[in-house]
């Protein structure tokens, strides 16, 4: 090996190291930005109420007292249950409807581009504008302070975005598969149920998870349309801010509990979303 060749190899090695270092340093910074507040939250949730406020932080004995207190001293479990009911209900009802809408858009071009944009246009307004008329409507329909009402409200948020997202999964490759099934003797419905839906399932599931999280984290509609018995987690969390000030330790424990389902769902979301999107439009 000549010195020259060895030199270029060393140079290439250095270049390789640099191209490894740069993205990794950026990732480290970003991860820290996202993770540090979460770790801080965890620390506060595990300390007792007095040390929670101490700066610089003191490291006392970790304890689960705060977690126990939110479940025993507060209706936290009821918040949790309400959130699960609303998020699950809104998603489970919206998803099949969105599948139908997206299928109509993709196969029949129903309403053309203008209807597609119209569906999306409700998402372009700030939610505050929509929530007040919704409040009046719900009041008339006796849907205020009920879980079905909140489910309906959250569906108005998730349905347009779900339909919009799913159109991409029905275009492209899947369309050809569906045609193959049609020439194989399948009716439109059989082709949809036996070919398109199974093949697009990862994408549909990912979209469903997104809708679930959207509803799970939603605050404004829940705050205005729900009452004491139908409060969801985000609203419940805000109630830890009492007139005595914020009970930061309890709030941290509650927040940890609230983001837990999201943390559990995210890995699935990532896997399905990548598979779903690579089957759909991005391929």
């Amino acid at each position, binding site marked *: 090996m000549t010195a020259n060749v060895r030199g270029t190899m060393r140079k290439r090695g250095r270049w390789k190291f640099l191209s490894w270092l740069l993205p990794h340093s950026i990732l480290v910074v970003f991860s820290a930005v996202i993770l540090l507040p979460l770790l801080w939250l965890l620390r506060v949730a595990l300390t007792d109420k007095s040390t929670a406020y101490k700066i610089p932080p003191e490291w006392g004995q970790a304890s689960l007292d705060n977690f126990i207190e939110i479940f025993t001293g507060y209706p936290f479990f009821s918040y949790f249950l309400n959130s699960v009911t609303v998020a699950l209900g809104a998603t489970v009802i919206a998803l099949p409807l969105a599948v139908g809408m997206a299928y109509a858009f993709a196969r029949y071009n129903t309403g053309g581009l203008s209807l597609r944009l119209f569906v999306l246009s409700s998402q372009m307004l700030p939610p505050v504008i929509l929530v007040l008329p919704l409040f009046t409507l719900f009041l008339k329909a006796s849907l205020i302070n009920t879980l079905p009402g909140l489910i309906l409200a959250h569906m108005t948020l998730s349905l347009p975005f779900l339909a919009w997202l799913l159109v991409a999964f029905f275009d492209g490759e899947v369309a*050809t598969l569906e*045609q*193959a099934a049609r*020439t*194989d003797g399948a*009716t439109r419905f059989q082709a949809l149920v*036996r070919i398109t839906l199974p093949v697009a399932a990862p994408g549909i599931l990912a979209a469903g998870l997104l809708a679930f999280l959207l509803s799970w984290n939603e605050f404004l509609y829940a705050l205005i349309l729900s009452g004491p018995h139908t409060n969801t987690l985000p609203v419940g969390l805000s109630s830890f801010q009492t007139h005595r000030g914020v009970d930061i330790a309890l709030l941290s424990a509650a927040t940890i509990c609230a983001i837990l389902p999201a943390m559990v769902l995210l890995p699935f979301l990532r896997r399905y979303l990548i598979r779903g999107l690579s089957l759909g439009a991005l391929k």
Partner: protein
Amino acid sequence: MANIVLEGVTKVYGQDILAVDNIDLEIREGEFMVLLGPSGCGKSTTLRMIAGLEEVTSGTLRISDEVVNDVDPADRDLAVVFQNYALYPHMTVERNLAFGLKLRKTPQEVIDRRIRDTTAMLGIDSLLDRRPSELSGGQQQRVALGRALVRDPEAFLLDEPLSNLDAKLRAAMRTELIKIHRMLGKTVVHVTHDQVEAMTMGERICIMREGRIIQVGPPLEVYRHPADSFVAGFLASPPMNLLKARLSGHHGVDEVDLSAVNLPIPRHRQAPLRRHAGSEVVVGIRPEDVHTQEPSDGTHHRVDITVVAVEVLGPEVILVADLGGGQEISVRQGATFHAVAGARIPLYIDLEQLHFFEVDSGLAVLHGGASGPVRPELGSYLKEGGP
């Protein structure tokens, strides 16, 4: 078995994309018909209309003498093999093959037997439990073919099924498809833009261009009597040399002027050319109708040319020659031919084999060989005004 008849069939996509323009075509029962043409000429659209995957904008489509314009694709009993195979990715090979049969409520033992026979024929019986993603391109292609065969449909529609295979596999599958067609005797419509595929596989070839049918006929017929200069320049590799020329000489048809060289036109061939006496024409010379040694039959005319390039293909050699005046021709030679670029050598052009085409329409005026003037039935496929 089925015949497929298109009468004045037109396809317009959206508002104004004219993909297929008023075509008439009869595909006979049991025939292997190849739709051939350059990219975007409307081959796939034609096939997809036959399959029922695209609506016919206007015209009539008949299968087995029944108008099927509005018949659902599921009820046409045709099998389509797609270019990308379109295997169901979430099913095993076995379930891919069984899908169509199950939909038709075929008894399980019949399904099993059909799958056994078909997979044995195609040599894919060991792949039944695999998913499409676990197959090579060639295996996927066979499975796609198997899925079409296993249903025993009225006719097969193939949209460039071989184009994703490597050259060797493609040649093997060509032979195999022909064998299968002979065995089953079913109607096949095969779409390709590969003229070798068309020549070797088709019982008849339908050549399309810009949404129209230019010519339909058996491969050799189309090869020998191309309806126009487009067909002549599309078939074979290298294709016919098409040279700008002018008819000239004492009666205006005695010779053809290729600017740097003049070729005499034998007296007995002059009559069909009179209409174009003295005017510009396109002269077609097949690469195999030019020789480097003078043949003994006395119908050849010597011209001296400059060697531009010699392409060695193995069994044969393609000589690219400069006739002067900016005209080049390709000449097919045996493997032993040798020349260096820039050399001056004589060529002998067979005057009996010259083809003549109109300049504007491209329509054939006179074909080479004993066939003489263009036969009217060939022209019947040409639409008004030509391509």
